[in-house]
């Protein structure tokens, strides 16, 4: 809490002397590497995250919660040859750090020799820092945050008479410094910011209540969607869920909105992760250079996007990231490997320790057409638009997919009514292969950018 002054609500909560903090982290990092080496560690890596900020939630035009955040986490991994120990702490005092070094070394004395464990090879370390414009502080105070949230909620509450209550509108603003160093001499500190505005509303009719929400999240507050637009979208979405009913059990095509589509992309990425592959527990085993999606599908990783939500010039092991195709003309171009899984698979690491660094999925279909969301729905003609999935029914070992769902019933290419209390089921491998089109309604609120997907028949369970 050391940055807070007497009149707290007037003071920017994201004030951070980045240069001083980075210097401090670098010196702590060097101390730790030295301490661990002195204890006999052959290799060491250190990761630190410092996060400060605030969030203000309003509900029914009153402040509900004012929260000041200030989080530290510090993690140390030591290797004694091929034996590994990890220790983490939130306490950055020198005594606590010293205890953490001891704890990590103690663990490494007891874990067993694993020939695949160790830092990534030294020659893979990133050497060219790239300025990605990730740090855009806005000087937010509790007062400013409150104004944003109040305006957003007011727009939502006024948008439609059927919106009778709010679950709250929240503005939050945070700054972070991510620091990583290892005993190869790699060291980097990256400051970043993130700002978000969200609104959750409840619409009501004689049948009951329905809740829905909308949000925006960006590195640069200038790029946030307006309070008006967020409030209005939240209201429209909540109201559109009124008058819902179940539909009959049947097999039909499905359009999933970008939020759901990027969930499917998440399932895809989990299945091509090194750990899923060396454990032989993925439905996409041995698919490298094989078609996984139809030929019109391209997925490109873009680590160097300015102000990108997952932009980075190095991965969590210090390996240089690079712009690369993950899917090209439907064919899987690479697995997602860190150095450990690469050694297990006798392959090379791909710069994916910690995951992908922005994934862009191009709109299209087999006839080279760019279809809008409405055109996707027209093309589906009769089927289901899925706007929400629930539960954990994804089996990555065999690809079986069964989720609770809600959305809209479509006949003659037109939305008929809201649908709820149903499930959709299929197998991810077939769902990917049967992808018919990707819409132009790209959603930029995530590091995975995609439009809606038109999928082939799925089993819909209802009445």
């Amino acid at each position, binding site marked *: 809490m050391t940055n807070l002054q007497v009149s707290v609500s007037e003071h920017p909560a994201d004030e951070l002397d980045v240069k001083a903090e980075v210097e401090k982290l670098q010196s702590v990092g060097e101390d730790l590497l030295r301490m661990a080496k002195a204890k006999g560690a052959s290799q060491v890596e250190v990761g630190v995250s410092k996060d400060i900020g605030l969030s203000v939630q309003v509900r029914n035009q009153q402040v509900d919660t004012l*929260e000041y955040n200030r989080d530290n986490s510090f993690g140390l991994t030591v290797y004694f040859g091929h034996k590994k120990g990890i220790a983490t702490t939130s306490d950055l005092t020198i005594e606590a750090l010293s205890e953490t070094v001891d704890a990590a070394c103690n663990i490494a004395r007891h874990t067993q020799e694993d020939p695949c464990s160790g830092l990534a090879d030294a020659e893979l370390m990133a050497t060219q820092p790239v300025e990605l414009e990730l740090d855009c502080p806005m000087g937010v105070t509790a007062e400013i945050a409150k104004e944003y949230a109040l305006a957003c909620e007011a727009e939502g509450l006024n948008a439609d008479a059927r919106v009778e209550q709010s*679950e709250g509108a929240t503005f939050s603003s945070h700054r972070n410094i991510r620091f990583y160093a290892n005993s190869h001499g790699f060291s980097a500190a990256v400051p970043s910011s993130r700002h978000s505005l969200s609104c959750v509303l409840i619409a009501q009719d004689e049948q009951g209540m329905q809740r829905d929400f909308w949000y925006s999240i960006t590195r640069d507050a200038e790029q946030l969607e307006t309070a008006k637009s967020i409030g209005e979208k939240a209201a429209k979405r909540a109201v559109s869920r009124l008058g819902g009913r179940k539909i009959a059990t049947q097999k039909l095509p499905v359009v999933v909105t970008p939020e759901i589509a990027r969930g499917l992309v998440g399932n895809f990425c989990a299945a091509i992760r090194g750990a899923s592959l060396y454990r*032989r527990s993925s439905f996409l085993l041995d698919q490298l250079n094989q078609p996984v999606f139809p030929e019109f599908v391209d997925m490109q990783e873009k680590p160097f996007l300015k102000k990108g939500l997952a932009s980075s010039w190095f991965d969590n092991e210090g390996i240089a990231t690079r712009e690369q195709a993950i899917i090209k003309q439907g064919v899987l171009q690479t697995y997602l490997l860190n150095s450990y899984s690469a050694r297990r698979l006798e392959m090379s690491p791909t710069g994916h320790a910690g995951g992908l660094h922005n994934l862009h999925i191009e709109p299209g279909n087999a006839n080279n057409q760019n279809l809008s969301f409405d055109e996707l729905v027209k093309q589906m003609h009769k089927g289901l638009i899925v706007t929400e999935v629930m*539960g954990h029914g994804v089996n990555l070992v*065999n690809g079986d997919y069964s989720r609770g769902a809600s959305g809209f019933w479509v006949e003659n290419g037109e939305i008929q009514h809201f649908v709820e*209390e149903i499930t959709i089921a299929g197998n991810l491998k077939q769902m990917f292969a049967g992808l018919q089109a990707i819409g132009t309604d790209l959603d930029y609120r995530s590091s995975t950018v995609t439009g809606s997907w038109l999928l082939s028949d799925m089993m819909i369970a209802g009445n």
Partner: protein
Amino acid sequence: MSSALAATQNEFLGPAGADLNDLTRIIDSMLSHKIDFAELYFQSSRHESWVLESGIVKDASFSADKGVGVRALVGEKTGFAYSEEILLPALERAAEASRSIATRGNSGKVKLLSTPQQQPLYTDDDPIMSLSEKEKLAILKKLDQLARQLDPRVTEVIASLSGVFDKILICASDGTLASDIRPLIRANVTVIMQDKGKTERGGSGIGGRENYHMLSDELLAELAKEAVHQASINLEAIDAPAGNMPVVLGPGWPGVLLHEAIGHGLEGDFNRKGSSAFSGRIGQRVASPLCTIVDDGTIASRRGSLTIDDEGTQSQSTTLIENGVLVGYMQDKKNARLMNTQSTGNGRRESYSSLPLPRMTNTYMLSGESEPEDIIRSVKKGIYAPNFGGGQVDITSGKFVFTTSEAYLIEDGKVTAPVKGATLIGNGPDVLTKVSMVGNDLELDKGVGICGKEGQSVPVGVGQPTMKVDELTVGGTN
């Protein structure tokens, strides 16, 4: 003063050179603003985990975390700040930040801090110290061997052991001065099995507020057996059916249905705000008369149990539904105050850096009178589901889901072919009205539940006897 209180005071205040007078002064300083309630929550947490994979214990980690959360309440408003530094200047700044929710003007004084003696529901032994590293490794290796011996089709075993040791100290403007020392352990095993080109996974786990000595050889054998059984059943599984049908839920962990369908909707915050499908329904019939459901934090050594909750309120057993009628909500201090009632000891928080919310402890349905075999026998065509993965609920619309991890067809009153994992969906406020038989075989789960709400995870328990729901939507592919 209880020994736990002395120990936690020493732990938190000793290094800061502070004492109870300093804490009283800080709370008083918060009360100089127009605040209804002020609270300091100190926590230290130590956590370790050991993971075996491919026959070797290759990953292990230890973490230590310590800090204080400062909360101020005025009306429905909450001000909150926290600090990893437990030093007086940091505490004073956090207090200032959280009280900024209200204007100056009061001159309240905290009541004398006092604490009733609570009989602890669990040991105060540090589980991390309860076994040597060698012994911990031996447990993991034993799980690996047991699983591989049970079935030669097992191609990979991932076994893990984790231990947490939490100490908390709470003082608040309502006079609360309380502390708790909470151990929590868990052992898990996942097996991957291959046969005739097919691969499947099975898993099981066990845990509680105990130390590692609870992991007897018999329990480890049971754990390995359950994981291998689940994987082998899933290797033979046929496509699950799709559509509405009767579902018989097995005893124990399938109580996750109660947690999702009923439990969350009965948490005080949603009902104060009127955003739950159960809002304003106290006294109404929401379940068949066969159903009586409680949330009980007082069972010794259970994963979801608490001697006191995270606001210092003694844990209790709260009846939620009695013979089908909704009788109670679960409350924390804030929501109880705003709804003119008492906290039920359900105020829980993930850590000092998150706000307390009304949360469940161990939620279960009491036994009925039916024989489990009779329940199965009563179903012509349906599903028998003895094991589940997780679930989720939309408390406003009441729709909830949970996904089977082991399930079978019931045909003409007999359990027949295993079916693949499928998500079941229903409507919370009416699913229990369709309960037509309740077994006499109440079981609690094995102590592995994690509940997420507003981004905060807390350990919970669930349980139930065998139970028949006449109609649920089963999300299979067939």
